[in-house]
């Protein structure tokens, strides 16, 4: 059973349908008690960091999320669900985030007017550290991205995959122990994205 955290940051339909298509049962919840007894957790989200953090506070989800990550429950952050795991984000004039991963979230900068921000589309992920969620996925495979801000990991040991865009080479996949987070959308990344979600579903932590 995959527990998807619904903190009113965007549309969960495609995450749900992607897991269902690989035969996983899905529970969508905004309740702290459901998170505390989950077997595997997916923390998705699109939109702005501040709205996401405000919603997590309002729903009293921050402490339960910290606890399950500390307790070793397999945990997958996606997009904004990755960004808010870091310390702060430049978005909305500076937003305090959850400080579960060391580093900050920065805005893409470029002087090239043909380099559009947000980044929308398929970009390659260079795998810099083998990880169970990337099992069977070729290095430099492309995933679907939609974002204007990117995570800058300050602990290089946490970087799993890297992607280049605008002025940045950023951690498009990061994590430690039972925690993994991706900036791209595996649920919209076709067969290769589904493979990543299947790997996560099968992941017995302890990487």
């Amino acid at each position, binding site marked *: 059973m995959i527990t998807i955290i619904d903190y009113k940051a*965007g*549309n969960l*339909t*495609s995450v749900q*349908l*992607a897991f*269902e*298509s690989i035969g996983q049962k899905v529970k969508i919840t905004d309740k702290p008690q459901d998170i505390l007894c989950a077997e595997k957790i997916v923390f998705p989200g*699109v*939109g702005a960091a501040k709205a996401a953090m405000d919603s997590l506070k309002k729903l009293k989800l921050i402490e339960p999320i910290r606890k399950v990550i500390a307790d070793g429950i397999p945990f997958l952050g996606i997009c904004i669900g990755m960004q808010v795991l870091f310390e702060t984000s430049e978005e909305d004039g500076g937003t305090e985030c959850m400080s579960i991963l060391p580093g900050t979230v920065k805005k893409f900068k470029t002087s090239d*007017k*043909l380099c*559009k*921000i*947000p*980044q*929308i*589309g*398929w*970009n*390659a992920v260079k795998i810099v550290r083998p990880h169970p969620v990337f099992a069977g996925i*070729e290095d*430099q*495979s*492309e995933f*679907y*991205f*939609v974002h204007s801000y990117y995570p800058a990991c300050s602990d290089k040991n946490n970087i799993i995959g890297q992607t*280049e*865009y605008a002025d940045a080479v950023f951690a498009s996949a990061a994590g430690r122990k039972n925690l993994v987070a991706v900036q791209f959308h595996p*649920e*919209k*990344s*076709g*067969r*290769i*994205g*589904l493979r990543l979600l299947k790997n996560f579903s099968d992941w017995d932590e302890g990487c």
Partner: protein
Amino acid sequence: MLTKRIIPCLDVRNRKVTKGVKFQNNIDLGDPVEMAVGYSDGGCDELVFYDITASAEGRPIDIDMVREVAKAVHIPFAVGGGIKDLEDMRRVLLAGAEKVSVNSLAVKNPDIISQGAKQFGSQCIVLGMDPVKVEKSDKFPSGYEITIQGFRTRTGLDALEWAKRAEGLGAGEIVVNSVDADGTQTGFEINLTRMIAENVGIPVVASGGAGTYQHLIDVFTKGKADAAIVASMIHTGKFTIKQIKDKLIAANIPIRQKW
């Protein structure tokens, strides 16, 4: 490197994919869900569906179809045609579409762009535009005028001014569909595409006119498009997505190669 997207466009009428030239002489091509799966498996990067008769028939967009597509393919897809208001946008997005496309509606009510962007995020809101070539003038400095309702109605809006305005209102992407090139398979309207792409900060999707490999190479290199829509050239079976992508890769255009 961010890759250039190849996006099959499926015009849907009564649950059948159809294709005409300049919105006329349509023939039915097949089931939209089956075709979506075929193109997704074949390596397309995204899909777009237009419910081409919803507006004219005054009926809501076919949400069951959107839901079936979302269950069957796990790549982004946009849905347009027949979106009347925020509630329609919500239904389409909750059914599993990544984006909604507004065209005539946005011309009549530009605030729908900002309202949609605020509610669902800019990345969900695509502005579709159908410009036709006109004499350059004070009224039309870009030399292109926006048409609506399947090219039937002229709006008096300059294409570039409208594109910039839509960006300011919060559109996440612009599909530029040349009225003059639509369905002709004689090449994209390169000047129009490049003019919009160089003057807005959001991605531009070129549409209308794809017929050969060279047309696609040109729209990315000369036209500066971020993505290109293909329809007739693949619907007829004359080309596959894989063949198109192989040619683009050979021309050094960044393209998604593994799927």
